[in-house]
């Protein structure tokens, strides 16, 4: 049985979907993202339950400073845009542009993580750590899990740069970059929720 239509069909698809195995992996990655959404959903609901359980420690309003948070938001949102430009370059087959955009994404991500760590250290100086209260435990694990995801994403992107350098844009590297971009956008969306429900709500609510 030969199915010639499959090949014709494949040619119209973007490279990352062209190979059957690679395209399966994209489906699988979506499923993984579903489980990650649920991890964050569980963490958010824990935070919702605990956000007033401040014990003797500081409240959200006393603790949060919007300056660093706005900076983090800016960095992460921009990085989501740059990886999007990277995918655009990839579709056009421009490997150098793709690598440049990915590199810029990494830098912005690193800026985000640095700012966040700085923020956490300043909290610790005020003795606001997860030893202090259930509120801070829930805050630390929610924001910390997101930060750990971003950190992992940075290292992942670095390995992808090496692979791009070695193999260029192939079905496989294209798929890898594409899944990385899905992951990165996903973290961006989670951050928007954190920004709204944790920081804004903590300051204004």
């Amino acid at each position: 049985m030969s199915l010639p239509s499959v090949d014709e069909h494949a040619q119209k698809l973007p490279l990352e979907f062209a190979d059957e195995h690679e395209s399966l992996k994209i489906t699988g990655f979506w499923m993984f993202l579903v489980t990650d959404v649920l991890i964050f959903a569980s963490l958010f609901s824990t935070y919702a339950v605990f956000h007033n359980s401040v014990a003797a420690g500081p409240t959200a309003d006393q603790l949060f400073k919007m300056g660093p948070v706005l900076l983090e938001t800016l960095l992460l949102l921009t990085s989501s845009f740059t990886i999007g430009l990277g995918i655009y370059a990839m579709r056009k087959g421009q490997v150098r542009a793709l690598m440049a955009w990915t590199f810029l994404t990494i830098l912005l991500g690193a800026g985000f993580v640095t700012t966040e760590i700085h923020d956490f250290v300043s909290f610790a100086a005020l003795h606001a750590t997860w030893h202090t209260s259930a509120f801070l435990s829930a805050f630390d694990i929610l924001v910390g899990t997101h930060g750990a995801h971003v950190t992992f994403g940075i290292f992942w992107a670095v390995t992808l740069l090496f692979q791009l350098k070695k193999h260029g844009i192939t079905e496989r590297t294209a798929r890898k970059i594409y899944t990385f971009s899905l992951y990165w956008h996903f973290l961006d969306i989670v951050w928007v929720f954190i920004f709204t429900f944790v920081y804004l709500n903590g300051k204004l609510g």
Partner: protein
Amino acid sequence: MPSFVPYLVHTLFPPTVRLPDILLIDFGLICAGIGVIVLLTKTRRWGWLWNDWLTTVDHKKIAILYLIAALVMLMRGGIDALMLRAQLALPTTHFMPASQYDEVFTTHGTIMVFFMGMPFIFALFNAVVPLMIGARDVAFPRLNAMSYWLFAFGAILFNISFVIGGSPNAGWTAYPPYTGLAFNPGPGENYYFLALIIAGMGTTMTGINFLVTTLKMRAPGMSLMKMPMFVWSTMVTSALILFAFPPLTVALAMSLFDRLFGSHFFTLARGGMPMMYVNLFWLFGHPEVYILIIPLFGVFSEVVATFSKKMLFGYPVMVASIVAIMFLAYGTWVHHFFTMGAGPAVNAFFGLSTMLIAIPTGVKIFNWIFTMWGGRIQTTTAMLYQMAFIPVFMVGGATGILLAVVPADYQLHNSYFLVAHFHNVLIGGTLFGLLSGLYYWWPKMFGMKLNETQGKWAFWLFLIGFWVTFLPQYLLGLKGMTRRMYTYPLGFGWHDLNVISTFGAFIMGAAFVVLVYNIVWSLLYGERDLTGDPWDGRTLEWSLPSPVPEYNFPRIPVVHDRDAWWAMKQKGQSLADLRPEDVHDVEMPKNSPIPFLLGASFFVLGFGMTFAWWPIAIIGFVGIILCLLFSGFDYNDHHHLKADAIRQTEATLGRLQG
């Protein structure tokens, strides 16, 4: 290092693991370990072990690995159960001290659910799902091997607790605050949380893998409504896994952080709240009980059709009902803690939503009965389990409904009535289903039948033992006996019933011995399956030789009907009409050591964290990173199986024309 050695001895071998029975087991384990090493060396089998098994990515071999693990865990969990029952039959003696009793009921429950039930189900998924849908493997073979090794090393981590450091003792549900450091020092609960997180990651990956496999890898022509019921149940179970395990992982991680790093999620101080854990746990836990039964609904649907020689009755309704169960399973978790006092409105809602599940379940029961109705029933061992399951499960479901009646549950909660309910569904449903599937698919997995006479002995012993054990427990629950107590005064009128129950447990112990004998005997002398279709089956796995060659299908079949193989046989077709020119090169995944090494690294990380020995944990962490890096840069993970090699294999099997 004079101060170092006593510290090590005290940490790794505290008095709780220096009980005489445990020391005896230590001795036995060491002897067995040395024996295995000597045997492997003498017969020069190390290479075989590594190349054929530890690095394999073949779903059929992974199935066998899961099966071996599940049977070993069934034995361990079963011995735990017999110890518990022995203590309860002799309540005035100290056969076990209270602390050991707590540990044994904890390991019993945890092992049976996570390390026996789950891997046994995955053994069946791996053994037949790709074959049933006409695929050459699962969607992600290497991920599949990773799932296995994460599960296996999680299981090992959990199981060494009773000889090294001490077992967990807070029940399989591990409620805080009792799992908190303040009330429960020592490594036991750390073992529990870490082992379950590691094995749970493996399970999540299995869920992803089989969801993509069943969605995307079906043979041409096999639309959703032409999938065998077992494939449907695999798909639904995988979806349940995807949604159930994340909350569990979060709950476990938070408990672990409370213990290791002093956070305050579920502690009693500084705003922590144990009830949050209970909610997260059962948000996982109730779907989990359906993860443990839906696959077996699938098994029973296949078995009943094959051995009634009829098409499954009401297939579309069967599909609709498991999908309905899947959704309903997320709306009932509060029924596990009505007594925590969420208020009448909440309790009423969850009471009613629980009762709703009985409707689709009842529909399925009727359909199985109607399938048998007017069929030519063959009472093979697999079919006997199916037929026994129906009444047993109905009792289990009915007592579940009683528990869902909120005012009644205030009386029955955490009594032996509850214990009897869930064993009723888990043994009568899950275990019977697993054994039914084992007898049914054994020829496909191993190329010979399990001896039927011995199988029927084991079956009757299991069935009788089951009723003798658990009927008295319903009565005990009504008489007020609560779960997890290791002694009681003789004057309460509980003793006789407990003795009967213990007697029943030993009958089931005997059944297990017969089962093992049955397996060993059949491996040596069992009737070979030369046709590949010993039961005159209906689905595609029976179109292949037993055991199935590495590449499964030399030519991917085209499906026109539900019960595809049966329809092909009716039309006089067979897959043995393969012509040489039909065979092409096949791309197959390569074996890889990474999954095994990744599991081992997680084990090292988990062990280090259990004892808060950070250098060891860091070694494990570095191992994990290296494994991930290696597989990221490994582009050479496929090889081509030449058409000639396939033709040769098929020719020796007598399946090639010309």
